[in-house]
């Protein structure tokens, strides 16, 4: 809402020393939030005066241009009273015209200083101004020619042009519909300064009679009040007065024609939307009803609309002529031939207005006010004001007929305990203050301890005691609210799950991974790029009805696309050695159960609550890793080490270890990984069942290409929720033996297909209780051991809790380990 300060001051008598900045801040403190203050011509300094052109001599120039050498009467503004000689390049004026002249010493927007100067063979003492030069618009086609009676030569042009008018733009919250008018803004200003206020809607209006235009309301719920007035003999060519056009512009509306401008002006003034019809284009009585499904109407914006049975329409014998309260129709629009105007001021049901606006994707100044609720008691005043202005400026005659159908509904009273504002705000507000605050905003208040409050008709947002508390609080002042830290009962701190999530992030950061956060939106192209099969469950994704981009309408089921795009972006910015991680939820849709819209007047039942939960997709927390380039850089210390599949597996293993969970790893085939370099990460759950948590390894070369990431980029993705569930809550302390350790190394030759992990487990099992650890320290393949075979070298450590092991004991354990490996995997000991 843009409110010109001079307009505000028409209704409220503010103290003379109140500046616009101060006013804006006081209103902000009351809840009308300052967005901006506009100062037209604020960067112009005088002398800027009205001048009358006395003579103009066209003088063609060598450069092909023709300039006018003018003499201009500027009264005594130049100190001499003599005509001012000025060179002007424009041609849209003639001797006798009133123009705007900036004299030497003046400064125009952009710091453009005006001085006497020699140009085109003359001394030009000033400048005749265009609208653009004054920062008043883009019109640079010619200079401003003022209307004949605009002023006398030498008059200050600031006033004539409405310069230095200050306009405050407010952001109006949806509950304060009354502030979408000068009437409302001025009322708040009066409240802020306790200043005298004149309500522009308070006017004596002619009594309704039966000579007015016939109006029938079929749906009094949708349209409780309808007022119609008509004027005749309107001059459609009559111009909109300058002051009105200027105020409309200042308020952000475009002047169109007098008939339209008057309805807009009064809407801004009083906050009530108004519609004007060309009365000669109306056929028969006006009837307000709900539309029939599929009915059609072309609205003023030229859109052909198919109506719904819920839309409220204004009709005549021809059918719908307007979408009630939202936008008029084309067939009865006022035109340059209109001489009879019917003025409609009607109250509409806000919910219908909101739904119609949403259904037809139609936002209008009228709709914005009607859907928030307007004062239903002022339609007569608004119609009368419109008639007054049409008569005054359009040469029209007010017809005697006054139609009024329906009555404004009474505003329901609100019961409130007088101490409620104090109890809710924590401010010591006396009941007397409560009463005076409520009366100040126009409420009728009865009682002392238990108040019965009838809000004013323009405050339809006030419906319950807490609404009144806010009114009292804002008038007393939000800055008066004391600051008291509440004392909570002893808390339990972070949950185990919350602590563990932090641990995962810190572990990875300690491992050199950098955390990123990516958007969860993907398109099916991303799944193609990952090489997912048609039947891959990850392709089943929740679809957005209104995605920001048509290319990414799905909620992702995997973190990999976002992560790989991030790898590519870093690469593009010159960072080639990358280790990234992301922890975020993915969305796994379940089978189409709808989430119920539950009642709000009570707590949902357990059954309803369960239904609501069931309707939501699974949203497990995932962890994804991506590595590219070098894991360790090369440098003066020697060569670097490229990141490989094993770093991705190691990242997952580190996280699992940090959580105290033992994970198993086995070879797997899974997109988007390299079929020979993909590890499935599994865990054994509490019931002893193996469960896959996710995968880690090297990306398939085709996937690398599709995402534009380097060959051999390694990634991992696991279900972190599942891993967190298995985390060890309380770590049992180890019991350490201080007896000496016995070390034995064994090298075993096995078939290439035997996984190292399996062989290690067998050794451990075979070595028995005395075995403290088994660590693989070398892998060898080559001619010496034959094709299709590999040699794995393990370091075994043995220790007993209660004694030093004898060589015989150690050897026996070691031999048992080797024997079991031989039995299970055909392992041969290499000597």
């Amino acid at each position, binding site marked *: 809402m843009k409110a010109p300060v001079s307009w505000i001051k028409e209704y409220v008598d503010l103290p003379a020393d109140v500046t616009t900045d101060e006013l804006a801040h006081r209103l*902000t403190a009351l*809840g009308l939030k300052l967005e901006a203050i506009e100062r037209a011509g604020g960067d112009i300094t005088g002398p800027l005066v009205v001048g009358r052109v006395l003579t103009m001599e066209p003088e063609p120039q060598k450069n092909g241009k023709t300039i006018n050498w003018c003499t201009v009467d500027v009264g005594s503004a130049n100190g001499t009273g003599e005509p001012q000689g000025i060179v002007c390049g424009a041609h849209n004026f003639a001797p006798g015209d009133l123009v705007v002249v900036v004299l030497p010493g003046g400064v125009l927007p952009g710091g453009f200083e005006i001085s006497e100067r020699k140009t085109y063979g003359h001394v030009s003492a000033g400048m005749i101004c265009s609208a653009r030069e004054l920062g008043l618009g883009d019109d640079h086609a010619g200079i401003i020619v003022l209307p004949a009676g605009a002023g006398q030569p030498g008059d200050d042009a600031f006033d004539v042009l409405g310069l230095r008018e200050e306009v405050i733009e407010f952001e109006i919250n949806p509950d304060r519909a009354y502030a979408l008018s000068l009437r409302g803004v001025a009322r708040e200003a009066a409240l802020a300064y306790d200043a005298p206020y004149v309500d522009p809607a308070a006017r004596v209006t002619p009594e309704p009679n039966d000579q007015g235009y016939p109006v029938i309301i079929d749906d009094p719920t949708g349209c409780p009040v309808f007022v119609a007035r008509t004027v005749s003999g309107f001059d459609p060519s009559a111009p909109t007065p300058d002051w009105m056009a200027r105020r409309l512009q200042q308020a952000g509306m475009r002047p169109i024609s007098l008939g339209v401008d008057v309805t807009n002006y009064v809407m801004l003034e009083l906050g009530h939307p108004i519609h004007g019809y060309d009365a000669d284009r109306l056929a028969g009585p006006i009837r307000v009803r709900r539309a029939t499904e599929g009915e059609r109407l072309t609205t003023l914006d030229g859109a052909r609309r198919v109506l719904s049975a819920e839309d409220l329409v204004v009709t005549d014998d021809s059918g719908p002529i307007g979408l009630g309260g939202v936008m008029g129709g084309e067939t009865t629009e006022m035109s340059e031939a209109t001489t009879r105007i019917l003025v409609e001021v009607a109250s509409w049901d806000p919910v219908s207005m909101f739904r119609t606006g949403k259904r037809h994707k139609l936002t209008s100044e009228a709709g914005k006010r009607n859907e928030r609720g307007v004062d239903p008691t002022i339609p007569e005043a608004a119609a009368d004001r419109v008639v007054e202005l049409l008569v005054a400026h359009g040469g029209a005659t007010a017809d005697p007929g006054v139609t009024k159908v329906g009555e404004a509904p009474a505003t329901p009273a609100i019961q409130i305990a007088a101490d409620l504002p104090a109890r809710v705000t924590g401010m010591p507000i006396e009941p007397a203050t409560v009463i005076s605050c409520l009366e100040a905003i126009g409420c009728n208040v009865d009682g002392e301890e238990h108040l019965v409050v009838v809000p004013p008709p323009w405050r339809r947002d006030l419906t319950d005691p807490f609404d009144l508390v806010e009114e009292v609080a804002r008038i007393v002042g939000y800055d008066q*609210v004391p600051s008291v830290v509440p004392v909570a009962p002893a808390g339990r701190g972070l949950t185990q799950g919350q602590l563990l999530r932090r641990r995962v992030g810190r572990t990875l950061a300690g*491992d*050199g991974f950098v955390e990123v956060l990516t958007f969860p939106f993907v398109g099916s192209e991303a799944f193609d790029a990952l090489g997912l099969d048609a039947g891959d469950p990850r392709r089943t994704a929740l*679809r957005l009805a209104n995605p920001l981009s048509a290319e990414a309408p799905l909620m992702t089921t995997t973190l990999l696309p976002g992560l790989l795009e991030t790898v590519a*972006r870093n690469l593009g910015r010159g960072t080639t050695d*990358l280790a990234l991680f992301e922890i975020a939820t993915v969305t796994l849709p379940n089978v189409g159960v709808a989430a119920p819209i539950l009642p709000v007047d009570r707590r949902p039942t357990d059954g309803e609550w369960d239904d609501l939960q069931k309707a*939501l997709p699974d949203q497990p927390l995932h962890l994804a890793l991506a590595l590219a380039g070098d894991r360790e850089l090369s440098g003066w210390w020697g060569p670097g080490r490229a990141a490989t599949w094993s770093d991705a597996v190691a990242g997952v293993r580190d996280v699992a270890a940090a959580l105290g969970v033992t994970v198993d790893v086995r070879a797997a085939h899974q997109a988007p990984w390299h079929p020979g370099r993909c590890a499935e990460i599994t865990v054994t759950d509490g019931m002893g069942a193996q469960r896959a948590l996710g995968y880690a390894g090297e990306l398939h070369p085709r996937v690398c290409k599709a995402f534009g990431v380097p060959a051999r980029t390694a990634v991992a993705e696991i279900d972190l929720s599942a891993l967190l569930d298995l985390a060890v809550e309380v770590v049992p302390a180890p019991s350490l033996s201080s007896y000496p350790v016995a070390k034995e190394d064994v090298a075993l030759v096995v078939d290439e297909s035997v996984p190292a992990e399996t062989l290690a487990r067998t050794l451990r099992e075979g070595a028995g209780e005395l075995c403290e650890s088994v660590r693989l320290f070398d892998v060898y393949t080559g001619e010496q051991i034959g094709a299709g075979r590999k040699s794995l070298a393990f370091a075994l450590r043995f220790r007993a809790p209660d004694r030093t092991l004898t060589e015989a004991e150690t050897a026996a354990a070691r031999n048992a380990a080797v024997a079991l490996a031989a039995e299970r995997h055909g392992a041969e000991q290499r000597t």
Partner: protein
Amino acid sequence: MSGPNSSYDPVQVTPLGEEQVFAMRDAALAAIAAAADLDELKRVRTEHAGDRSPLGLANREIGALPPQARKEAGLRVGQARGAVNQALAARSEELEAEAEDRMLAEETVDVTLPWDRMPRGARHPITMMSDRIADIFVAMGWEVAEGPLVEAEWLNFDALNLGADHPARTMQDTFWTEPAENHVVLRTHTSPVQARTMLTREPPIYVVCPGRVFRTDEYDATHSPMFHQVEGLVVDEGITMAHLKGSLDHFAQAVFGEGITTRFRPSYFPFTEPSAEVDLVCFVCRGTGEVPAPDADGGTGQSVTCRTCRGEGWIEWGGCGVVNPSVLVACGVDPDRYTGFAFGMGIDRTLMFRHGVEDLRSFFEGDVRFSRAFGTEI
């Protein structure tokens, strides 16, 4: 050392006169002093202090002397050998120290060589700020509540007094999911966690909920379809706006430092009544709206408008209010017994102010240089 000389050959017996012993001793001492390194010293030791050295042989001969001469000769030879051994030990220590010095000098490295072998890891500043905020409230006895990002329409709107026909629904441009009749949205704020908390816990309730939210905003320097909020909710007996103000003042100071307080402005949210916007004293200019001009000659005393708050002295931080009784009713809390307050602040916004982040997109581009700058704690 040789044993006692019990059967000696008189032929080999040499005189052990004072002069001779002194000469042997002096020759040994001279040789020790002249030894340039440990190897040479080793040779000198054999030559002058070994069994076959003159003094060693002299020692052997003592037993061959007539008993009356033994004592004197023994004393003389013993003293000479002692002096030699002492000199050997001293020289040896000296030479070892020299050798060590030389070795250490040779092993000197350039300690300024770079050590960027393993690129540093980092957590995301938003994660870290969320943790930090959680910790501030946990220290006050609050707990951290959570809820899903893909949320039921009823929880995101209706339960919060935002019915289907509420004009304020259009204030939050919502991502809707298909099919529409499932009534599932991407949560537009962390406020559904309020409803979830009230529906699953008994008052007194003191919780915060940092989390991710979504709105259909075009992606630019100040808008993002995904951003982060922290929700606060307190429901208890006797809770007032004063407690809300106290909590936010504490929060502001814990994040931005001493003296950074908050200001309430009347506002509107369907789920709170009264409602307020929360402004924060600009922590760059500390509320003055001006900062010293970045002038070369510093001491001009001139100031320029603060860029962070655009001269206002205050920056918009979030929204808050007293929980609307209709929300309490929908969530099964007795509005006659309990009152509550709630607030919601932007985490991304908080970081932008606190760290001077100029472009919101920096948080979501994943440029590792950005996150690394913040390290692992914020």
